């Protein structure tokens, strides 16, 4: 890799937006809005990459030549993990898969709750984890304010859970000896 490319890589700070397998146009249009793009650029992010899922709202692409945020999008990818890894900030729907995948990678995370879902239990988890300071929690309509006010230094790292207690219970119940 050449020096110029490395320098380019060093300045690259990607905001990755993911809706998983859902349709969440309210989130996509919120991140596509002028004020959200501006606040992200003001905070030093250079790229906005949006995973649209089943949504139909298409954001405006931009190559960011004029010093503004470069914006790109795609619908699905089998390598979401790679996008998460290369991101400096993740804005995600409230699906637990996306939430924990991001937290495990220790990436700063803003979770946006989809209020259009019939059974909106998802806010429970995001609220709980926001109370514990592992992420920021927003709704599409106050995403801008959340991004403007957020201070990533106040977030606490998340220590992953452990499935062995369940496995132990199941084994004992079935009469398997502890090992």
């Amino acid at each position, binding site marked *: 890799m050449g020096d110029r490319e490395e320098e380019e890589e060093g300045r690259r700070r990607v905001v990755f937006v993911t809706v998983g397998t859902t349709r969440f146009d309210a989130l996509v249009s919120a991140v596509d809005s002028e004020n959200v793009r501006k606040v992200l650029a003001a905070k030093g992010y250079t790229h906005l990459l949006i995973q649209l899922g089943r949504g139909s709202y298409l954001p405006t692409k931009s190559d960011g030549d004029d010093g503004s945020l470069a914006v790109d999008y795609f619908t699905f990818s089998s390598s979401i993990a790679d996008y998460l890894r290369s991101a400096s900030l993740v804005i995600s729907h409230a699906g637990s898969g996306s939430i924990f995948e991001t937290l495990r990678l220790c990436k700063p995370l803003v979770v946006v709750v989809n209020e259009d879902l019939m059974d909106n239990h998802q806010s429970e988890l995001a609220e709980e984890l926001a109370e514990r300071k592992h992420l920021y929690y927003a709704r599409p309509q106050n995403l801008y304010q959340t991004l403007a006010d957020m201070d990533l230094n106040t977030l606490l790292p998340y220590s992953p859970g452990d499935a062995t207690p369940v*496995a132990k219970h199941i084994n004992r119940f079935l009469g398997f000896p502890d090992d």
Partner: protein
Amino acid sequence: SAIISSVIFVITLILVRVLFVIYCSSRPMSRRAQKPVSTLIILGSGGHTAEMLDLLAVLQKDRFYPRFYIAAATDNMSLQKAELLENSLAAENGTPITNAGKFMKIYRSREVGQSYITSIWTTLVAMLHALWLMIKIRPEVILCNGPGTCIPICAIAFVFKVLGIRWSSIFYVESIARVRRLSLSGLLLYKLRIADQLFVQWPRLQQQYPRAIYVGRLM
């Protein structure tokens, strides 16, 4: 009157049997397990599958064998992920990949966002499909964690227990996404006492549902 009394007799018999099954289900197996148990794993979408695979990662593969995976017909990702896991297990043990888990699809009783009214019809179709799959699999252990797909399967498993067709131990792990209330699936399996053991990942849920078992966060 002979007909009426025999009907009452049969109903009483069934009720006693149901109560007996519920009583036995709530207690650990009295015998020490000797052989591996055939295991049906019901996968959900996205987060549910991730949680289930985390659990499978720590379960002893030589005890929970053979493994059958069921996912919704509309969900391609979950079975793919399970297949990846099984293939990597097979590679580790040097067994041929064809011996790995078996994968099946099931019609879903309710899609995210579908109305409760149309859910009735789709649930019926899902029930028949589930019955067919359960007749084929007849698992000794059922592991599930939340998607609606598990309701018809577990209900049929319970009926099989009552009829003496097959005794399945049903384990339900409530999703980590449920902090304050059980999911509809969890609530049904808890209230109807279909789940032998119902695990929750947040202490608040255990306080609310005393028969649930708190196991801490899986993820």
